[in-house]
């Protein structure tokens, strides 16, 4: 069980979502979602596959447009921003994709250098190299700097994906299924890394997962998405102390009681 981060600032909302609705054709995925993320907090969004968890964070990052609702990120309403304003906001958001989304024609070094070359043009080559070494050291993969993504294991790819988002020092981290498809030991490493990122880089994070071990290990607060709305909210134990059969089934399946 995670020890609550003492640095959480409950007076400072970095993300605030009200009445978010999103449908694809006739299928309504999100049916009026309200959500707040506080400064320094790790918020876990739990839910079954296809319940719209990834859609939620893609809307926050401006990759998808909401049908209805207000999405406020770091004081800015995402769907009202111009492309340039959205790009400036995106520099403060790190997005770790489910399949890492490393650029497979580039080496690890080039993957990490890619955002730096574009957004920190003032940095010299030596400074860029220092930043790359620092994030690689933070994710524990300094030795992989010259490898191609295809030469890395699933866990290593996840770590490099996280390193690539960290290199621009984001204020908010969005993790999409960070432990999906990994073995239990590697999952443990990724969970520790998420907590380490929170401590070391002072980020606020939303972690999308259906892995309860991950939720328990990294979440300061947990919300559960059921039928397009958040049905449960609180600490991990509070969320699962319920008689709701849907929630109990989710717990039992994960921990095989």
């Amino acid at each position, binding site marked *: 069980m995670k020890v609550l981060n003492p640095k959480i600032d409950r007076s400072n909302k970095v993300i605030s979502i009200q009445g978010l609705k999103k449908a694809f054709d006739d299928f309504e995925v999100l049916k009026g979602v309200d959500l707040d993320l506080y400064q320094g907090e790790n918020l876990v969004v739990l839910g079954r596959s296809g319940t719209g968890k990834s859609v939620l964070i*893609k809307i926050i*990052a*401006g*990759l998808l447009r909401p049908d209805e609702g207000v999405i406020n990120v770091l004081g800015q309403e995402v769907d009202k921003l111009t492309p340039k304003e959205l*790009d*400036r906001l*995106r*520099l403060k*958001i790190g*997005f770790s*994709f*489910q*399949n890492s*989304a*490393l*650029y*497979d*024609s580039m080496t690890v070094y080039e993957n990490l250098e*890619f*955002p730096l070359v*574009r*957004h920190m043009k003032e940095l010299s080559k030596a400074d860029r190299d220092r930043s790359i070494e620092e994030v690689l050291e933070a994710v524990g993969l300094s030795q992989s700097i010259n490898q191609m993504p295809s030469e890395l294991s699933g866990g290593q790819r996840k770590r490099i994906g996280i390193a*690539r*988002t960290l290199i*621009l020092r984001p204020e908010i981290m969005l993790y999409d299924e960070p432990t999906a498809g990994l073995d239990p030991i590697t999952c443990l490493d990724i969970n520790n890394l998420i907590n380490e990122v929170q401590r070391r880089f002072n980020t606020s994070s939303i972690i999308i997962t259906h892995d309860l071990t991950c939720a328990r290990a990294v979440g300061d607060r947990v919300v559960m998405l059921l039928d397009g709305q958040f049905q449960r909210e609180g600490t991990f134990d509070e969320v699962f102390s319920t008689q709701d059969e849907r929630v109990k089934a989710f717990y039992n399946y994960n921990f095989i009681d």
Partner: protein
Amino acid sequence: MDPSNNKSGRKYVLSRRMDRIFIELASIYAFIARFFKEVFVPPYEFREIIRQCYEVGVRSLPLISLTGFIIGIVFTNQSRPSLADLGATALLPALISVAIVRAMAPLVTALIASGRVGSGIGAELGSMRVTEQIDAMEVSATNPFKFLVVSRVLATTLMIPALTMYTTFVALMGGFVNVSQNELTSLTTFFTQVFDAITFLDIISSSVKSVIFGFTIGMVGCYKGYNSSKGTEGVGKAANSAVVTAMFLIFIEELLILQIVNAIRGI
């Protein structure tokens, strides 16, 4: 009841198909318009453009060399009997040069490039789309359209004309090898006859045509790849569709440009 089983149902299905066609056309128009909007606006991705020029141009050279040379030999060999019947084998260099410069070099280069380059672009961008690499670029505040699409379309538009010139030269050399073996013509005489037969309009129309073919190959490959979906199946479809569509459009463009050039010639 299946709506397609009655008259109004058939109308409904037809209307949905028409909708899809118009939506696709609007989407293609928006894609091309976005290219022209973004190509002139900084930042310019010079490094990526040069890398793509190398991929399209230099890496196509072995295939283009072999194909161009063989086409030159085969075309000369196949044309000889017809000219020999008329006692006009001396006109072979002129015939070869007109055929190669006006039609064969641009067309063959474009068809080879659409197979090699167009399918590669479709597959690469399709794979990047389904593995969320394009989304990753977007959330890191990099314009994926400019980095991926503009650079590739510029590369094909610049490199296909260069490759066409090279194909022309190689095919003419193939023709010369055949002519020199059979008619004992020297290189100087051969190329004198070649240049006497072609006009400024031939060279200009061939160059303009290859620019249009290059643009088509890049644009079709990028459009199909950038908008692919449905996982790995979508990647295969994007690559296949990029080749088929580009080849189809190249033949249509060839026909249209031929009509325009003939009108200029007054034929």
